[in-house]
């Protein structure tokens, strides 16, 4: 796809992050002031070397890591003080990297559990829609989720997050541990999700795959946003490899 297809800046962002400072200890923040906007139907890849704070950043946006400064807004509403479980009803869904399904519950129970915050009339239609999107899951709803393979787990985790019809979907390393074929499947699914107007924030180590579907990429280093560019531009960047040696931002910082 071409860069011009992306929503222009005229579309108001659905997720707005301003000066976010977050981490596990206030004296030692891992995320040290990040700004980011994501628009409906847009896929933004969050890239950077190990320890750059990518995962902490998206977890803070989801509300599972304490925030010490800055602001997170969803649909123009400040949600910084909202606990994680209420951000889900605000329209923000998060798929963690590991342990992202309830292994002791069946597939159907996993979905029903998450549909619980919807009005009663909407629950079954949303579950039907999820099964339509992931027919593999719909064919055996009563299977215990712990019995699923790695790729199917990722499908269920994504379906679980989408069940509430979120405005923003955040995924933490969805391709980790999957075979190239499965990575392809997962990313194809994300493209379909994007077409329904959901904004997607994607943390990835698998840079090439991420940039192949993303509209934009942002590069984090040491808890700060060092670079933001259209995905096509990043794909063409010969320095891309250096990104993960941690030298990319260094090269930029030195004129």
């Amino acid at each position, binding site marked *: 796809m071409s860069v011009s297809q992306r929503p222009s800046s005229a579309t108001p962002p659905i997720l707005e992050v301003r000066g976010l400072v977050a981490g596990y200890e206030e004296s030692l923040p891992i995320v040290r002031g990040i700004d980011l906007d994501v628009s409906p139907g847009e896929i933004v890849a969050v890239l950077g070397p190990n320890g750059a704070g990518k995962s902490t950043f998206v977890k803070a946006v989801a509300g599972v890591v304490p925030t010490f400064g800055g602001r997170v807004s969803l649909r123009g509403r400040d949600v910084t003080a909202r606990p*994680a*479980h209420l951000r889900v009803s605000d329209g923000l869904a998060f798929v*963690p990297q590991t342990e992202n399904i309830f292994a002791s519950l069946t597939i159907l129970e996993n979905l029903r559990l998450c549909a*619980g915050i919807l009005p009663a009339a909407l629950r079954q239609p949303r579950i039907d829609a999820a099964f339509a999107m992931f027919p593999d899951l719909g064919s055996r709803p009563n299977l215990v989720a712990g019995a699923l393979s790695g790729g199917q787990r990722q499908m269920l985790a994504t379906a679980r997050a989408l069940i509430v019809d979120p405005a923003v979907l955040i995924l933490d390393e969805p391709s980790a541990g999957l075979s190239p074929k499965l990575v392809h499947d997962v990313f194809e699914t994300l493209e379909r999700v994007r077409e329904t107007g959901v904004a997607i924030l994607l943390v990835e180590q698998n840079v090439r795959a991420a940039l192949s579907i993303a509209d934009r990429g942002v590069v984090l280093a040491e808890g700060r946003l060092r670079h933001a560019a259209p995905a096509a531009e990043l794909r063409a960047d010969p320095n891309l490899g250096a990104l993960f040696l941690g030298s990319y931002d260094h090269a930029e910082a030195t004129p």
Partner: protein
Amino acid sequence: MNPQFVVDGLVAGAMIGLGAIGVTLTYSILRFANFAHGEFITAGAYAALALSGLLGAFVGSVPVGDFSFGWNVLLAVPLAILVTGGLAILLDAILFGVLRAKASAVIILVIASFGASMALRSLLEFVFTSQPAYFTNELQIAVRFGWGLRATPDQLLMLAATLVLILAVHLLMTKTQVGRRMRAVSENPALARLSGIDVRGVVRTAWFLGGGLAAAAGIMAGLLVQIRPYMGFDLLLPLFAAAILGGIGSVPGAVLGGIVVGLCEALAVQTVGAEWRAAVAFLILTLVLLLRPQGLLGRARS
């Protein structure tokens, strides 16, 4: 061997099973062994005693049918369950919840529960004295079945009531959103939060259920034996043994474990002597930890 131990063991086992459901629920959701659980049993029994005394003034205490107790006791049961469930929530709010919020280690919570157990038990002793109390002074005539088995109408009612309660809890856990939420939080609280679940609400539900079921067990113990400040504390070891034997987190396991412990205790009373009853639970606990630490119906983890 006199087969009567089967009846006695089943009745005691049903009671232990009810209490053990509470232990297993709070353990799997809050992740610590609550040594104050026995005091919920005692508190439930005393709450029912006090309430039945109050209600006796309005509805009288004439025995109902063949049972030994009147409407005042029957009406006090649901109220005592509510009161004890509330007590469990209160204890969490002022003690365990505060420690969790400070990210205290599991073991700190266990010590705190130990202190709370001591304080609660002595408080009950202070209010009600250490003299045993009874719901009723009526005597009962046992019903005889074949094979020399006999049971009092009270015992049969307890068995039936336990069966209904256990079935209700099982349906709650497997068929309702409340149950799914509890299972989800017990498996992965962080993911539960990300699924839009208010974990604190689920924790309160678990405390309420655990406290309420403990009260039910305490009322049964009070009707079948007597009410004393130590009654719950003395049941604590059988409850832990039942919950671990059944597999922590498993409601059917807790019931099964309770029945096994109850039957073994009754058998030991008949063969070895009543004075060794209290050691049976420790023996079972030792064997489970030695042979199958995950319990009969538990998942292997940890």
